[in-house]
């Protein structure tokens, strides 16, 4: 089915073509740019184009595909670097040089690579929808091949041995073949049997998070902060050290140099939990700020779909997106070129529902194959002018469980991670305290309370000191200020460039306990009359 372009405005193109479906993938122009139908009228449709429309002309053809925008899911995704449309960037570089040319169609998965398929079912077995029939080894992971969620019957044949991605893993007596890979539309959440409540912590290795604002497997967190507050570094630290199986990192509308740095680092660094190369457990989706804006909108969906795919194998997957504001801005740009009525600050009125739809794709689930997998999300937000009342931050707050506010004034003091300990919160703290008490230490909660108490008192004391000067307060209070300073500078601060970048729970707890014990002891000595200068 082919029609002609009738109008072009920024990243959107109108086309005279009947019979298109909403969110169907189309190829636009002679250069075969990828696009997606976003609006349909009686005799025309509007397409958002995922590539630069420069040079495009009316009367060029638009070809329908009858398929929605989809990603390929199968062995070979891990350690991959993809753009927002799942084109492999390394292959693209090798084939067409250091600059990205438009209209280049390239498979996400390597067609030539052979995989050793190990069957887990045999001929004659009955299978139900979503059941695992075998696996291939993808690095250190068993990559399970399921039969698809709409298939059931008796196996007439199961593969055993080397096959490539286009091969079949088995077939049913009814004649249906089970492929090694499949396509999945990015905007449709992958199904599962049921969602389960979250109860296990996701350890990030960041003391301020693990100790004060604990995060959970299957949970969602946002990191809002103005520029220079260390969002990207914190996201990358979490990507490096989180105790999950697989990490999907979406660099959405951010800096190219930072991504280059991250790629190099992930090639070299090792994951502290297993000691294997970090890249082995990582999938990168990169759509930097100068890459086409509509593909940036799609990139988080591409990323979350791949994350769900590994979740469905029973893995714990962490999706990091940096930054969700850039996604929202892409949505706004597209919305404005569609001449939609804007809501707050020019964002479309459906911003909040799209966001919550996306964020709810996180969670712990029981998969069709009966395994338990989780998908957690850590999203950074870049509020304009560092103002948290803006729509993206506010929409995120309504659906996410952990709010880690990054504070410009802390960042100016080079206090990193610049997590503000008064404004931030974690709704998971209650659910997780039992786990921490049981698995780490019975004192966990008490120590945490003690630490918060000191930080809270410090805040009020500082106000007093601003008025009367440090000489004007009691020694006990000066001791408290000293302890608070220690908590802030040696415990809450964590240098992402040294060995301290990862802090296991035991180390976290003992570090803070040491400070609190000192505080208690010094307090006693003060009471007994030892001068403060001597104690410090």
């Amino acid at each position, binding site marked *: 089915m082919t029609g002609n372009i*009738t*109008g*072009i*405005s*920024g990243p959107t193109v*109108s086309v005279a073509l009947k019979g298109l479906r909403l969110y169907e993938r189309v190829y636009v122009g002679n250069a075969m740019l990828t696009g997606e139908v976003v609006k349909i009228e009686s005799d025309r449709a509007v397409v958002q184009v995922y590539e*630069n429309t*420069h*040079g*495009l*002309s*009316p009367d060029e053809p638009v070809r329908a595909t009858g398929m929605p925008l989809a990603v390929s899911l199968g062995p070979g995704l891990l350690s991959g*670097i993809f753009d927002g449309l799942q084109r492999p*960037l*390394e292959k*693209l*570089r090798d084939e067409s*040089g*250091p*600059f*990205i*040319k438009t209209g280049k169609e390239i498979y996400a998965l390597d067609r030539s690579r052979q995989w050793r398929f190990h069957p887990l079912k045999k001929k004659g077995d009955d299978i139900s929808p979503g059941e695992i029939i075998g696996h291939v080894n993808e690095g250190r992971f068993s990559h399970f091949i399921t039969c698809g969620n709409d298939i059931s019957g008796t196996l007439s044949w199961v593969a055993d041995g080397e096959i490539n991605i286009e091969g079949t893993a088995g077939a049913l007596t009814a004649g249906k073949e089970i492929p090694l890979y499949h396509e999945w539309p990015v905007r449709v959440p992958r199904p599962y049997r049921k969602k389960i409540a979250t109860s296990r912590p996701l350890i990030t290795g960041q003391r301020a998070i693990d100790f004060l604002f604990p995060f959970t497997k299957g949970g969602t967190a946002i990191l809002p902060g*103005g*520029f*220079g507050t260390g969002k990207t570094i914190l996201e990358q630290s979490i990507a490096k050290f989180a105790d999950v199986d697989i990490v999907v990192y979406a*660099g959405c*509308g951010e800096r*190219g*140099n*930072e*991504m*280059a*740095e991250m*790629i*190099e680092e992930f090639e070299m660094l090792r994951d502290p939990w297993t000691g294997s190369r970090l890249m082995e457990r990582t999938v990168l989706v990169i759509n*930097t*700020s*100068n890459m086409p*804006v509509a593909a940036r909108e799609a990139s988080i969906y591409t990323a979350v779909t791949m994350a769900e795919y590994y979740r469905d194998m029973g893995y714990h997957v962490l999706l990091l997106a940096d930054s969700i504001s850039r996604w929202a*801005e892409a949505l*706004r*740009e597209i919305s*404005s070129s569609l001449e939609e009525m*804007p809501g707050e*600050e*020019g964002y479309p009125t459906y911003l909040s529902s799209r966001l919550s739809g996306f964020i709810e794709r996180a969670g712990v689930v029981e998969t069709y194959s009966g395994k338990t997998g989780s998908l957690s999300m850590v999203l950074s937000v870049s509020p*304009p*002018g560092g*103002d948290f009342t803006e729509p993206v931050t506010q929409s995120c707050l309504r659906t996410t469980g952990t709010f880690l506010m990054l504070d410009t004034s802390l960042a*100016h*003091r*080079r206090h990193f991670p610049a997590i503000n300990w008064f404004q931030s919160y974690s709704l998971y703290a209650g659910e997780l305290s039992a786990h921490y008490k049981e698995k780490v230490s019975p004192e966990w909660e008490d120590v945490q309370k003690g630490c918060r108490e000191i930080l809270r008192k410090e805040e009020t004391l500082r106000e007093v*000191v*601003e*008025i*009367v*000067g*440090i*000489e*004007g307060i009691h020694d006990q209070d000066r001791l408290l200020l000293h302890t608070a300073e220690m908590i802030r500078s040696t415990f809450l601060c964590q240098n992402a460039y040294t060995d301290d970048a990862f802090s296991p729970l035991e180390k976290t707890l003992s570090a803070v306990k040491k400070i609190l014990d000192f505080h208690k002891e010094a307090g006693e000595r003060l009471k007994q009359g030892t001068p403060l200068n001597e104690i410090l």
Partner: protein
Amino acid sequence: MRLSEHRYKTISSIAGPLLFVQGVFSARIGEVVKVLTPDNRQIDGEVLQITGDTALIEVFAETRGLDIEKTSVVFTDSVRRAPLSPEIIGRVFNGSFIPVDGLPMYIAEKLAPITGLPMNPAARARPEEFIETGLSVIDGLNTLVKGQKLPVFSCSGLPSKEVVAAILRNARVIKETAIPQGNETIAASGDFIVIFAALGLTFREYSYYMNTLKDMKSGFVAFVNMADEPAMERLLAPRFALTAAEYLAFDNGMDVLVIITDMTNYCDALREVSTAREELPGRRGYPGFMYSDLASLYERAGRIRGMKGSITMLPVLTMPEDDITHPIPDLTGYITEGQIVLSRELHQKGIFPPVDVLPSLSRLMQRGIGKGHTREDHRKISNLLYKYYARGRDLRRLEAIVGRDGMSEKDRLMLDFTDQFEREFVNQESARRNINETLDTGIDLLKRFSLET
């Protein structure tokens, strides 16, 4: 591909820099058009939007005097390209790439579309090679590296052009083989070239910069749009400059430093087009796509794996009302790898360069300093100086409330350190300091105040 140029006399409306032309046969987005005015001038334009057979044209010149009856529009069937050749070095152009230095145009070796193509993130090389600017506050505390984009945030009335000129005069790329040992410096200035794009420059600034450029040892290319020249040209000049930069860096293996001043004028021109198109304005009337548009410029900085050259960018912008949360500095800061913030207070104290250390930041500094890049103790010195200065600045607020007498001796010492830091380390007037001198000044200060080193 059309065989001939199409000429239309079917303008339906003219508003500000925009023209609507009807009955156009297959125009392209971004296609270059020539507008022939009733008084036989020829001005440049570009196709911005197409609806059916109506094309919306943005004109990069004054539209005064245009009419509907006599004005005609010629469609050229090509997107805008920059003519490139190694002969570009040493030349001065206006915002439309026409030589203004009195010399004839060279013969182009290559034509490249000025919007450029996005660099593949997987092809980028990590920026980590130190550039010595000769200014302590940058080299020591906010180190610039090859391939970085580091803007200067200025305010009206502050000496941003003197800061830029100081960098122009003093900047050197230190080759890895020539890392200064001990107190000696062997700085090798390799194939280093400056591309200077001036947007909305006054004549005073123009003559100042031209004198600086002419005195430089390394080569330069200048694109100058004066304050009284068409505002729309400001949208073109930085793209010409960056296309030339990509050519010199990646086709000719040179280290290119691109200076664009003043980005505030660029953003205002962008706002002018956007409002003329009756688009919904975003914050402060700036268009919603300004982030992506700025990124399409700033992100052209970088290095490529396996290639020799590099593009380093130093855009300069003026913060309206000294407000760092204004959309122009805000969006810039979100794209660039740090910022150098100038301070009115330091300027009033007579400190040059008046760089406020606290809000300034170089995100790529960590990779570009230390052993093998600058000096092993660099990281430690810069962290200490920053820490004590930040503490001193906190104490200054306290001093304003309780008075100097109400403070402990330790705090008073810290206040003295803070003053001396500004006077000796930040302040260097017109002197050039190499990295060793910078770090030694820092050590000297720390020692004098018996602060841990």
